[in-house]
């Protein structure tokens, strides 16, 4: 009996399969594979995204008192808040200063390592190693390097006669952008290794034969770099710049630890101000509106990232 009921089903399956053989059958099996991730994703990414948007229209507080709807009040306040604009400008400044060296140095390092193959192991280690060091260790080391007395930087600057020994500087607390630049230098040292690896990986996929014709023509190394290597790296460069812009706009850790936003809020960045508004000022609603302003900015850049990714896909 079981055989009888099974046969028509098998027969019909056999009949329908041949014409549509290449097409995959819709089934629930695949859903079980993606469901665990989707559940996590919904809980820890989608839900907070909408929750944050909702909070931005309320006066929710960290103190836990009941929140009430305040409409666009937080948003209006955010756009009129000088301290928020200052934080945004500082973030933009940091992004503007840090992105070019983080891209250019990455290319230089990758080109050198790609040529100096025999030292490959040592060079890769040297340029990438700082990237795996925790931020507090990085700031610990660099804040000491920037110290006025016995700090490496001032010591050598004085030896070279570039700085007055009687008026030593605490670099990361200096005014007129010194604090900001100190963090930029530290950040470049710390994170350039990642971009370097992306470039190195891309360089190593370039087929050496593309250089052959131009070598025969006697093209100089410099010409090959400008006319062959760099154009071949265009996609990598686009990717690195976009990833770097997003990372730089999210600057917080090292700036917060080293400068604390000082002096006179010269180096107070966007996420730092969100942190201050939310966790020191207890104003979750307002901090959520601020987060969304930053979110939208990063979103615009991410759209470029997404387009880069999907072009690769197609």
């Amino acid at each position, binding site marked *: 009996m079981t055989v009888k009921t099974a046969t028509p089903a098998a027969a019909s399956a056999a009949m329908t399969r041949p014409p549509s053989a290449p097409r995959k059958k819709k089934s629930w099996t695949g859903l079980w594979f993606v469901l665990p*991730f989707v559940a996590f994703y919904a*809980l820890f*990414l989608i839900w907070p995204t909408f*929750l944050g948007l909702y909070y931005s229209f309320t006066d929710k507080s960290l103190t836990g008192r009941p929140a009430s709807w305040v409409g666009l009040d937080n948003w209006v306040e955010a756009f009129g808040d000088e301290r928020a604009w200052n934080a945004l400008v500082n973030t933009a400044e940091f992004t503007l200063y840090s992105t070019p060296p983080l891209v250019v140095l990455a290319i230089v390092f990758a080109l050198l390592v790609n040529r100096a193959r025999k030292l490959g192991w040592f060079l890769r280690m040297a340029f990438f190693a700082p990237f795996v060091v925790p931020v*507090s260790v990085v700031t610990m080391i660099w804040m000491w390097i920037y110290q006025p007395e016995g700090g490496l930087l001032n010591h050598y600057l004085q030896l070279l006669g570039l700085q007055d020994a009687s008026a030593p500087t605490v670099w990361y607390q200096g005014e007129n952008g010194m604090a900001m630049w100190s963090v930029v230098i530290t950040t470049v040292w710390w994170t350039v290794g990642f971009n370097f690896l992306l470039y190195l990986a*891309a360089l190593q996929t370039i087929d050496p034969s593309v250089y052959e014709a131009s070598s025969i023509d006697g093209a100089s190394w410099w010409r090959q770099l400008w006319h062959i290597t760099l154009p071949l790296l265009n996609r990598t460069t686009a990717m690195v710049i976009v990833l770097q812009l997003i990372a730089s706009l*999210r600057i917080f850790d090292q700036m917060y630890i080293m400068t604390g936003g000082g002096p006179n809020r010269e180096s107070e960045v966007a996420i730092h101000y969100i942190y201050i508004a939310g966790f020191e000022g207890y104003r979750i609603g307002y901090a959520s509106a601020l987060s969304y302003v930053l979110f939208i900015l990063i979103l615009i850049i991410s759209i470029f990232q*997404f387009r880069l990714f999907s072009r690769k896909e197609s």
Partner: protein
Amino acid sequence: MTAAQATSVAATPTEPRTIRRRFRRPSVGAVIVYVAATLLAVFWLLPLLWALSTSFKTETEASLGQDIHWWPETWSVEGYKVLFERGDHFTWMLNSTIVSVIVTVLTLVLCVTAAYGFSRFDFPAKNVLFGAIIAGLMVPGQALIIPLFDLVNALHMGGTYWGLALPQVVAPVMVFILKRFFDAIPKDYEEAAKLDGAGHFRVLWNVILPMSGPIIAAVAIFTFIGSWNNYLWPLLVASDPSMMTLPVGLQVVAGGYGLFYAQNMAAAVLGAAPLLIVFLIFQKRIVEGVAGVGLK
């Protein structure tokens, strides 16, 4: 006889030529490249070497206002001894390890299964779900800290390992990268396995995973580095020093012990060492993985 052959081979007239080739004058360009690369690399390592050298100095020699020696005048492990006696450094290290392992294992399990599901099956709402995950690529984690903080407290996970780890697990970019890699694996292998009666999980485990070594290694290593070095999230969630991770504990608590430079640099060296060692071991894998991620 083979030995005689070997010596005769070694003594063949080709020997002078190989020697000559070995001592061939390298081109000026190559010399410049090697010298420049070495100088830059050493320069790049100076901050780490400086920390290492200071960690072995006495506190007097290390303190501010002293002359700068790159080589300690008197070697001392005082800085390390203080750290071991105090012990909190190792609590944070343990916490960091626990959190990073949870994050890495869960990320791998969830992202690999999801990527396999999206790559190999057709199911209801597939496109909607995948579209939602792609959209998630654009959401910056830091913009979510406030609602996430609220959520984790509502789930009573504040100050726990789960509260520290779970919000770091969601990584749409990893699903995307893995799916793209799985898509490129020919289906013939799994069809052969299925003919042998293997189920979907066996196919994933025995066919797909062994062919995805470098990409899985890259995802695991970058997830681990990201989690180990995460600062803002643990700063918010772990207020109790016994639950802090290494980056937070070093900065918040150890920063308060005062300016003992030898001791601070010993902490810095011990804080940097674990991942540096992991990186040195898996260096080749990491570079291969980055290449495999296809960001070219």
